[in-house]
């Protein structure tokens, strides 16, 4: 996608998508044959598994690998388990993929009643036990921490990447559910004094007013809606003295939390901004676990060899390698790029043109950083070139004249440092 203007005296500006006054109606997609869910836990062959090929599951049932597991997924469909296999995600994340064969009783699928009973006593335990796989991927772990309690909950009504309108859509159309969700979050956090702020695009400040929390407008200039930029801007660096004192929830996650407690059912429908090759946008609603191919078929998009399917936005998303890949709880957008739109990275050295330095929102000296990273000097990069100040927005790589995959270098370096640190702690 070429976005450079003819004049180049100022760095290129990118703006977020803003939702129109009449949001599109969601296209509903139901998985045809199989759903795939990822449990965030490595599959250990020796362990005695609770779920095996052939096990029957009903919609809303919690699936855990072993009785000791802390992680789980909630099945969006009724059916039988087809396969349980190891899966390696981004940055070597070891997960387990569970494939469930859908049994077609669309009328009224058998629903597991465990959550309905638990929802009568709303609280952090219930939320952690049933809701962490909700569409929008709410992370309750920060709220559970007692040593350094969360002071601020930031509700992200603005989408953190370009082209995406999923959270804006929720803010615009599901004000009631967000309000329910905010109330539920208040109960979850108990009587603690937690400050809740909802960040929305400036044009939605009015629409978001009914949620019952402080609403603040976010500039539509990239990367101002990046969660860390919002936290820096609204909470301020002084409030960030404590690590993790801010918890982030997307507007979609908050709405689903509200829905879950109100109806006593775990909602599965994930809202996705679908962007076709021609840039046309649709809002798709599909259960978590639905393979991309079902969505492609429903919206009538064709994908050929060499095209790129992006989960997430164009700046920070992840490209997937199979059309069997399922919708995940945090898949806010699915973007299809034609082969001809792809500009590949190149194996060139940095020429020190400084474009990256001029666009970096946190003033990272990217030209210095990339020299350390290219040489594999990750510790030096962190000490001398502000590797840790990077908020991973991808802007530097977007403007790079040498087309260096800077963002990938940065992620790799952070990953390697994390592993080194973990190894040191293990040996200590």
């Amino acid at each position: 996608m070429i976005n450079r203007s003819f004049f180049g005296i100022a760095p290129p500006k990118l703006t977020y998508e803003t939702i129109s006054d009449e949001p599109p109606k969601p296209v509903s997609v139901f998985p045809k044959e199989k759903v795939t869910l990822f449990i965030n836990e490595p599959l250990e062959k020796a362990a005695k598994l609770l779920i095996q090929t052939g096990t029957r599951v009903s919609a809303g049932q919690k699936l855990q690998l072993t009785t000791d597991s802390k992680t789980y997924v909630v099945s969006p469909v009724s059916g039988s388990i087809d396969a349980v296999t190891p899966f390696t995600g981004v940055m070597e994340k070891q997960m387990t993929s569970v494939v469930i064969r859908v049994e077609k009783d669309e009328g009224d699928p058998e629903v597991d009643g465990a959550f309905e009973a638990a929802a009568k006593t709303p609280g952090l335990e219930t939320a952690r036990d049933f809701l962490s796989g909700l569409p929008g991927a709410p992370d309750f772990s920060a709220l559970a921490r007692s040593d350094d309690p969360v002071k601020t909950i930031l509700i992200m009504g603005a989408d953190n990447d370009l082209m995406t309108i999923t959270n804006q859509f929720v803010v615009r159309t599901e004000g009631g559910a967000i309000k329910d969700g905010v109330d539920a979050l208040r109960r979850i956090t108990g009587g603690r004094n937690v400050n809740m702020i909802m960040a929305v695009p400036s044009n939605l400040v009015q629409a978001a007013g009914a949620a019952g929390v402080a609403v603040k407008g976010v500039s539509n200039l990239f990367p101002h809606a990046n969660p860390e930029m919002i936290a820096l801007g609204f909470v301020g660096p002084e409030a960030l003295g404590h690590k993790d004192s801010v918890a982030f929830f997307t507007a979609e996650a908050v709405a689903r939390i509200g829905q879950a407690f109100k109806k006593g059912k775990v909602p599965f429908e994930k809202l996705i901004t679908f962007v076709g090759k021609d840039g046309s946008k649709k809002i798709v609603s599909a259960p978590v676990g639905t393979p991309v191919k079902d969505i492609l078929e429903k919206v009538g998009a064709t994908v050929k060899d060499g095209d790129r399917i992006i989960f997430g936005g164009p700046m920070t998303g992840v490209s997937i390698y199979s059309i069997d890949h399922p919708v995940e709880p945090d898949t806010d957008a699915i973007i299809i790029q034609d082969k001809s739109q792809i500009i590949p990275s190149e194996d060139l050295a940095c020429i020190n043109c400084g474009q990256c330095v001029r666009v970096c929102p946190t003033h990272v000296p990217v030209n210095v950083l990339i020299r350390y990273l290219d040489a594999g000097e990750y510790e030096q990069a962190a000490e001398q070139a502000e590797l840790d100040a990077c908020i991973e927005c991808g802007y530097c790589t977007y403007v790079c004249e040498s087309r260096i995959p800077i963002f990938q270098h940065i992620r790799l370096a952070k990953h390697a440092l994390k592993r080194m640190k973990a190894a040191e702690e293990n040996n200590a």
Partner: protein
Amino acid sequence: MPNRMKLTVSHAPFWHTGSSTSVKYYHIIAVAMISVIFGFLQYGIPAIAVIALSVGSAMIWEAGFNYLAKRPNTIHDGNAALIGLILAMLLPAVTPWWVVITGTFVAIVIGKQIYGGLGANPFNPVVVAYAILILSWPVYLNYNAALVDYVFSFNPVYPMAAVKFQGAAAAENFSIIGMLMGQQVGGIGTGFGLGLIIGGAYLIARGFIRWEITVSFLAGIFATAFLFNLSNPELYAGPGFHLFTGMSLIGAIFLATEDSSSPVNFIPMLIYGALGGVLTVLIRNLGVHVDGVIFAILIISLVNPIVDKIRPKAKRRVMNYA
């Protein structure tokens, strides 16, 4: 069932501005052509011979070094051609062929490739090459001596040399308008001020060079020359003269702005450029060399890594959400 479709998989971001290094170099070459065409009109076929030899030999040195060093061949990126072209623009139209070839050897091999190629050179290769040439064979690069056989319709003396040896009064023989229109002796591509300014404005507007460096370089020349002129108008020529003759314009637009040897942060760019301008006039007025641009740029490239440490403090990442 295995899925046979092969999707393109890569790391984010999935958009790019579409800019590239070679696009930039080809644009700079195109802009430099204005001055080259003027050089041809002024000095005839010998000018084209020098240009062609310089561009060609620079590309051959690049390809040869890449071959010997077992590096990927980079002559298609346009940088070697650009180095050859800019070097030729600094030379007199009748430079002997072996001087040109030596110059491009120094520029490509000693100025650029031995440091690791594109982006790794601490000095502008053209500036290194010209400095070595003028220190080694000053007679061939002396514009007055080299261009003695030409008949010009204007004052056939190199303005910088005239002022150096005859005092500020000599500057009165050159009008600023005349110098802008190229009515001065000099290198093939250094004389036509208007063409250089138009080209520079285009490069700045398109973002191919950084305006901070060009503007502060010229401002440095202007301010320093003005102060010298103020202190002793009989000895030192005025700022207008210094801006539009010698290598001032080509230095500010094509030489000082070379990416690898110049800073990237705002304040360092201003310091770098202004320092270059100041040093240029200091060398011209007080030094032994006729023109100071080349040595001034060498010195500012030397301080570039230190100056570029002046940068805004990074907004520290203090959160670490899961």
